[in-house]
């Protein structure tokens, strides 16, 4: 049985990383040229890593499923990126960002990793500015900041409502430069479908060329997964349509432990579902809660127009329950409160699955012009999608799946339990514990890719300088390719009656109902059986059209949904194991006066799951979390 070794360096929190960095083993430049690194994914985490590794002299191969590395889902992030620059002189510091992140994560993350994240956060902004990222500026020409997600300091850097886009284009430009120089070989429209492990080490991948359907074998001395989150297991989420767990899942099945899969962030302010044709959900920036008031009618089933509901018949439930934070209560708490109101029959809109976010008071107080200046583009976007004018009628919002804190388990070096296999960005589990703070995902992706992995990977590769490139006709490559091919052939041969989307929607429903915002043991146990049944049915009755050796969008989706079917069960297992409520994981059995009740004595661990075969129960390994610098505290927003 593998033992989890987090490899956290000794020393005080403040000096761990710098000491460790100074003693890490190095690879000399002439050897770097002989070492090949595969990077899967070109979002913030992947592009930054691929570019930085190539700058160091390694031979890099990078992959994405879109037609260009610039289209990775990081592009959609709106709000901003945190950094402990303290440019505002408002008392921010590396320690404060570290503490906020540990507390926000409800004491379920690793101190040393989070501290390092906060520490390198300042260099990220320097790097991005040097690349020409057009961050918002003040009149004096210096960088502007805003406060985000209820933080008490202004530490969020932003580029209008397109921060993710601008950061990604910055990383993409660095990557493009390295491609142009011949240091990175880029594989667009390629999907990793298998990991190749030789003598216990990650040595390559099988990728499907999505343009012609051919399976290709690629060797690397090390493999980096930067493939993003798995929110699409719920079918509906704010993720892009292609976001998937396939690469991470294939690695999991080859030995990489999967950590905390049940930690899913549900964002409170999204545009509600409008019909069963709905394909994805759209996020409305959290900043709206600075001026909007959230409410539902006091009476159940009240179908009156919002304007006809008098003030004293409205329940401003966030202000009522959390007087000190009010409408700015954290994401997990606001989302749950909205669900409770709707479960209570007081939801609004046709479906009853929405709450109002009302700007009438703010418009009265500040004037329409001020509101327009602050949120004009968001109001336009809302109107564009819903055909309703939020200056006239309150917005309708509902929580939606947004981010996955869980992911592949990694040690301090970002190495998984498979030697030579690394995971970065949203794809790994580190740093955010049970709940992520706003504007911290972009920070983590770039921290991993620019400033952590390029150092830590050297520690491993320094031991690989005598390993010659392994020819891709090695039996392990052939075997992995065979596995991939058999699976594709199987999917195409079933020729059943239901489409891939039929199954994906069914899976999403189960996950949302039983493993979504509120969970309980009974529901989870039931859901586990339902997912197993659905999976069996999938492999008997799915209908996938077209051929293997062509661009086949139906087949691409089928492969991804097949993996979600397996992941879904693991998420349920994890939620069942965690007999406590923490952060985004809310077990209704564990609460105190309606609030999440953590159990630090028993559950202050990372749950890292080992795969034992589909349909077999996974084995749980616990990494105990040790807090030497912060003390457990109850998150209270009342």
């Amino acid at each position, binding site marked *: 049985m593998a033992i989890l070794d987090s490899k956290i360096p000794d020393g005080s929190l403040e000096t761990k990383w710098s000491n460790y960095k100074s003693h890490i083993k190095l690879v000399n430049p002439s050897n770097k040229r002989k070492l090949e690194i595969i990077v899967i994914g070109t979002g913030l985490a992947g592009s930054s890593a691929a570019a*930085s590794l190539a700058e160091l002299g390694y031979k890099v191969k990078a992959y994405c499923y879109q037609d260009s590395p610039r289209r990775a889902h990081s592009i959609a992030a709106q709000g901003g990126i945190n950094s402990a620059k303290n440019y505002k002189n408002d008392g921010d510091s590396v320690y404060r960002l570290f503490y906020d992140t540990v507390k926000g994560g409800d004491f379920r993350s690793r101190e040393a990793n989070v501290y390092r994240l906060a520490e390198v956060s300042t260099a990220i902004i320097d790097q991005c*500015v040097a690349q020409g990222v*057009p961050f918002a500026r003040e009149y004096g020409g210096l960088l502007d900041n805003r406060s985000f997600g209820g933080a008490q300091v202004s530490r969020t850097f932003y580029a209008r409502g397109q921060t993710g886009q601008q950061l990604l284009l910055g990383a993409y430009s660095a990557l493009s430069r390295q491609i142009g120089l011949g240091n990175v070989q880029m594989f667009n429209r390629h999907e990793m479908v298998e990991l190749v492990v030789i003598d216990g080490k990650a040595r390559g991948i099988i990728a499907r060329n999505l343009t012609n359907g051919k399976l290709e074998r690629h060797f690397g001395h090390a493999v980096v997964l930067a493939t993003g989150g798995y929110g699409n297991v719920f079918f509906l989420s704010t993720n892009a349509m292609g976001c998937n767990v396939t690469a991470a899942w294939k690695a999991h099945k080859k030995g990489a432990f999967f950590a905390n899969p049940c930690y899913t962030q549900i964002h409170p302010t999204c545009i509600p579902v409008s019909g069963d044709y*709905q394909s994805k959900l759209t996020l409305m920036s959290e900043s709206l809660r600075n001026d909007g008031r959230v409410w539902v009618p006091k009476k159940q089933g009240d179908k009156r127009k919002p304007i006809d509901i008098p003030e004293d018949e409205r329940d401003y439930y966030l202000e009522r329950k959390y007087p000190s934070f009010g409408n700015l209560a954290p994401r997990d708490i606001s989302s749950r409160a909205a669900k409770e109101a709707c479960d209570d029959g007081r939801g609004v809109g046709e479906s009853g699955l929405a709450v109002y976010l009302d700007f009438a008071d703010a418009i009265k107080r500040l004037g329409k012009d001020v509101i327009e200046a602050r949120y004009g583009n968001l109001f336009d976007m809302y109107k564009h999608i819903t055909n309703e004018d939020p200056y006239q009628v309150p917005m309708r919002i509902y929580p939606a799946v947004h981010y996955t804190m869980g992911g592949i388990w990694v040690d301090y070096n970002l190495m998984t339990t498979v030697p030579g296999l690394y995971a970065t960005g949203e794809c790994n589990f580190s740093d955010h514990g049970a709940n992520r703070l706003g504007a911290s995902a972009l920070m983590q992706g770039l921290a991993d890719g620019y400033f952590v992995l390029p150092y830590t990977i050297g520690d491993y590769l320094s031991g690989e300088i005598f390993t010659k490139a392994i020819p891709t006709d090695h039996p392990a490559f052939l075997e992995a390719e065979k596995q991939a091919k058999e699976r594709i052939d199987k999917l195409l041969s079933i020729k059943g009656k239901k489409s891939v989307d039929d199954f994906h929607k069914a899976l999403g429903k189960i996950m949302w109902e039983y493993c979504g915002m509120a969970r309980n043991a009974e529901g989870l146990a039931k859901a586990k059986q339902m997912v197993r049944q659905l999976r069996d049915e999938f492999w008997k009755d799915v209908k996938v059209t*077209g051929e293997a050796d062509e661009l086949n969008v*139906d087949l691409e989706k089928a492969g991804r949904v097949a993996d979600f079917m397996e992941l879904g069960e693991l998420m349920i297992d994890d939620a069942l194991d965690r007999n406590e409520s923490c952060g985004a994981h809310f077990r209704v059995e564990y609460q105190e006066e309606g609030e999440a009740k953590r159990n630090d004595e028993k559950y202050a661990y990372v749950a890292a799951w080992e795969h034992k075969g589909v349909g077999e129960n996974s084995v749980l390994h616990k990494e105990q979390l040790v807090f030497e610098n912060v003390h457990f505290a109850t998150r209270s927003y009342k």
Partner: protein
Amino acid sequence: MKFNLKIWRQKNASTPGKIVDYSIDNINEHMSFLEMMDVLNEQLIHKGEPPVAYDHDCREGICGMCSMHINGRPHGPLAATTTCQLYMRNFKDGETIYIEPFRANSFPVIRDLVVDRSAFDRIMQAGGFVSVNTGSVQDANNIPVNKQHADLAMDAAACIGCGACVAACKNSSASLFVSAKISQLALLPQGQVEAKERVLAMVNQMDEEGFGSCTNTGACEAECPKEISISNIARMNREYYIASLT
């Protein structure tokens, strides 16, 4: 709502394609255009026919992946909108809708509505960057940037690289796309050091990829979902002349 769809179907790059008729009924006006395409594709799959392949990912108008030519216009009838941001209420009940891939020699069709836009990536690889390595930079606030320039740079940087400008242009010119990146970096002090090399390299690559030349028709600006201004092309030309003369 009900629609007649005339959709370009093409098996692969080497097989000729053709317009195929489909009719679709019971469409909710609040559906997005791509959700309507999903409904059509589900119907095709249930009949055992391959669905219509089209590029899309974020469905929020930011990744630049969606790329259809709808009723003769890139990204369809609305200004400042990508295909994924269209809703069926933007069309008339009973309408015939033509759906084709972006058309340009430098964007060959791969299948159905999917085209190859990798020429854009190659132009970026030629010079669409500031040559700084990770870690070798100064503190961010040591480079003050005039706010007006920063805002203009951001306007140009909003380009999503979808290729609508090329598809809209009768010459298939990529000038708007290329000039947006050149402008962004030329407006910022960080980009000025390499401004000359950049503009020469990117324009050269643009020509090598076979994009046509700009004759100032303004079609690109009119169809750009991000309303990138044609004044960027003027800036690119200025930068180019200065660079070629010195």
